[in-house]
């Protein structure tokens, strides 16, 4: 661990932020076109974030501030561990459990800060967000567990590398189709896209956890959201869609995956939170277990494809 690792980490962080924020801006335009609007300019998201950071804000006590800092800190640390097209700022630290549990630090910080505001809408939002997490994460973790068993490694970059060189047929989403479906559906839950967006439902619970934020706190939340999106999409991309052999391929695949999720979510209604739990435990959980049994007992999709 040298100073260069930290410099690389900072570069990954900056690149991830810029790339994802630009992509969000583009997707705001895509959304607008689906809804037959013109839409904002592609860099509008940057303007929003920097404007929020410049404005004055209110605070409800030290935990309101501390939670925001802890959330962003945890999420930034997670981004640093994400391998991008085989490049890792800190080598050998891309364990999938480390990434998915370190992500939880950020979520806990955000939940803590939101509940610390004293607004019941925020608490309701947090309660829904945590329930949502229990819904999507269990099937997803079972599929990831299957991958670890199949490839005998929990390193995200190694799992990504093993899928490369065979084209589309090498992707885990194709080799293990049921697992791929689970991961793709779980991505909607992770990103809080419709139909699983009841925890931030703006018209219903006044944006839930975000209700009390303004000024720099809101700017932090925007940055947090962009980085979290980057982590989640990257994780699914590397584990199930082959990652990328070069930065360019990675970026293109990433953009396609994210835009696809966004387009699909635009034509979806919203699940109530208990409907979301029921759905995830009826369909994706069963798929995940069947996929796990197939891989563990039959060995299909592990080493031999053709």
């Amino acid at each position: 661990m040298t100073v260069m690792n930290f410099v690389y980490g900072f570069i990954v962080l900056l690149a991830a932020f810029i790339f994802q924020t630009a992509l969000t801006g583009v997707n705001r335009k895509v959304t607008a076109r689906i809804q037959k609007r013109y839409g904002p300019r592609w860099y509008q998201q940057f303007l929003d974030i920097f404007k929020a950071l410049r404005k004055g804000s209110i605070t409800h006590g030290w935990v309101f501030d501390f939670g925001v800092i802890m959330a962003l800190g945890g999420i930034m640390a997670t981004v640093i561990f994400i391998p991008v097209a085989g490049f890792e700022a800190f080598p050998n630290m891309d364990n999938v459990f480390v990434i998915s549990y370190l992500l939880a630090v950020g979520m806990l910080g955000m939940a803590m800060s939101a509940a610390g505001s004293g607004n019941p809408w925020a608490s309701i939002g947090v309660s829904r967000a945590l329930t949502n997490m229990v819904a999507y994460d269990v099937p997803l973790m079972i599929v990831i567990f299957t991958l670890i068993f199949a490839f005998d490694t929990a390193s995200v970059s190694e799992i990504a590398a093993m899928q490369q060189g065979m084209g589309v047929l090498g992707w885990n989403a194709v080799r293990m189709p049921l697992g791929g479906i689970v991961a793709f559906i779980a991505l909607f839950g992770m990103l809080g896209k419709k139909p699983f967006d009841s925890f931030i439902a703006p018209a219903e619970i006044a944006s839930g956890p975000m209700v009390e934020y303004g000024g720099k706190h809101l700017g932090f939340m925007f940055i947090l959201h962009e980085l979290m999106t980057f982590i989640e999409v990257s994780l699914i991309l590397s584990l199930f869609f082959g990652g990328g052999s070069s930065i360019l391929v990675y970026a293109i695949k990433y953009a396609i995956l994210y835009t696809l999720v966004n387009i699909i979510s635009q034509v979806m209604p919203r699940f109530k939170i208990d409907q979301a739990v029921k759905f995830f435990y009826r369909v994706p959980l069963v798929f995940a277990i069947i996929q796990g049994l197939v891989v563990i007992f039959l060995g299909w999709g592990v080493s031999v494809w053709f």
Partner: protein
Amino acid sequence: MTLITVLITLLTLAAVTYLLSLVNSKLGAYFTIVTSLATIVMLFLIKDSIGQSYSLSFFTFKLTTVGWYFSMVMVTVYFTTAFLNPFWIKKMIYPAAYNLFFLVSLIGTIGMFFARDFITLFICWETVVWTSTFIIQMGKSRKSSYVYYVVSAIGSMVTLFAMMLVYQVSGTLEISTAFSALSGQPVLALIVFFTFILAGLSKIGIFPFHVWLPMAHGSAPHTFSPVLSGGLVKMGAFIAYLSVTAFAAYEVFANTFTIMGIPAPLYIIMVLGAISIVVGTVMAIRQDDAKKLLAYSSVANGGYILIGILLYDQIAFAGGMLHLISHALASATAFITIAIVAYRTGTTKMSELGGMIHRMPVTYTVYLIAIISMAGIPPMGGFVSKWLILQGLADRGLLFLAAAAFFGSIGSFMYVFRPLSAVFLGQLAPKYEKIKEANIMMQIPMYLLTIATLLVGVFPNVVLRVIADIQLEAGIQEIVLVGNTIVVSNGVLDALRVFIVFGYGFLIALVIFILRRKSRRVTLMDTYTSAEFIHTPELLHYSSNFYAPFERLTKKPYPVLNLYEKVSIKIKEIGHMAESLFSSSKPAITIFWIIIVFAIFFLGGVL
């Protein structure tokens, strides 16, 4: 210094504590701190003589690494919890007895972990059960101590049966040699295995023996709940350890039906562990009482420990053993913080509390770190142990156990956040406006436990080296440790590096935050309320039915509780019948007995 000296010294100190408590109960309570500290020191002194055997009349002991490890976990919990004793001792009905039992139960556990023969094991075990039963009775309800005693008694009697069975076959009471006589008799071995492990299952709160935990933990005196959950529950893990080492379940059942390489009897117990994880998690999410919530979380974590230890391999076993200490620390801390909140406010009901952070920031921070560990989030101790267990399960491909483990670990985010939000965050009710932070004496254990949790999380290899020794002692492959890194076949973890990078991220966020404009402080009531005017803080605090949608999904009570209710009603009926036969003033009963006596008197010879 020998183990015998240690035990005798401790018994003397316990007696001294009792006598002091008779004079001044508060002084005696302070003496419990001294005695438990002395235990830690003495355990360190005897560490060098590991491997030696001792005997005292018919008690025989053997100093083992695993016993030493378990004792250290136990005594750490006792020592830190003892700091609370002076503040609660006035509330106990029998203060002197409380102090005595507190220490005797500690001595009992140490004796049990070093026991070399069944009699010593059983006597020490029963000492702990009896003393803790009497302590639980000094809490909120008597019923809970009955339930605790009945479940414990069923467990220990069945285990005693197993011990006698083994004695009959082998002719010896020494634990390590007695079990070897079972090798040629598979049916007998099966009976012994299930009966022997039952005491462990009932103690660690494995489904369906978990019913006592929420009752006993919830209503025990606040100073004893941390010990129950952090310490005494772990005695069950020791029995599980004995069943795979001394009993050698993997060798005894090697020829039976195996599931993914695990003998079926062991797999059944592990499935029970998995069910406990799910049941504990779901029930914990539904609780309103913070202590009951933490008790159910102990049920869930007991499942992890049991699965880890029973897997008995390089990775998951180390994880189970590490989870023992990380959960003991986290759970004791969480119970202590809730105890302090209850000391200041008089309640543990989450729907009646709120906003404690504004009055008790230290308690809040300590609770936060405890739950980060309990939920298995880096950089705390609970993460490393759960990581090892999950990696171990993934290595073996145990899908269903892993599914339960994932559900428990993600569900734990839900239940640990509930007290954080409902007790500490949110609106502060006006009636709690005047309450104070915990005093220095109560803060000491919180600091100690928090530092320990963090150290286990950042430098897990210090503990894992001891666990590697245990693995060596048990004859399985040791966990591979390179410097600060844990290396397992399917992954590596450098906990220190995770901590440093987290600190780096936190620093960047902090710098950005400080560089921006300072924000304006507003009151808690100054929030967005959709243009409604609400002036009552209690109404603006979201704490009851926190997970209403999830509770709706899981509202059906599971069948075991109904079964227990029915059995207890039947037993009560039989008891009432027996009682009415002997202690009734009704003439009919008297005549009934006269007829019986006459019948025996006249017809006795004929029959």
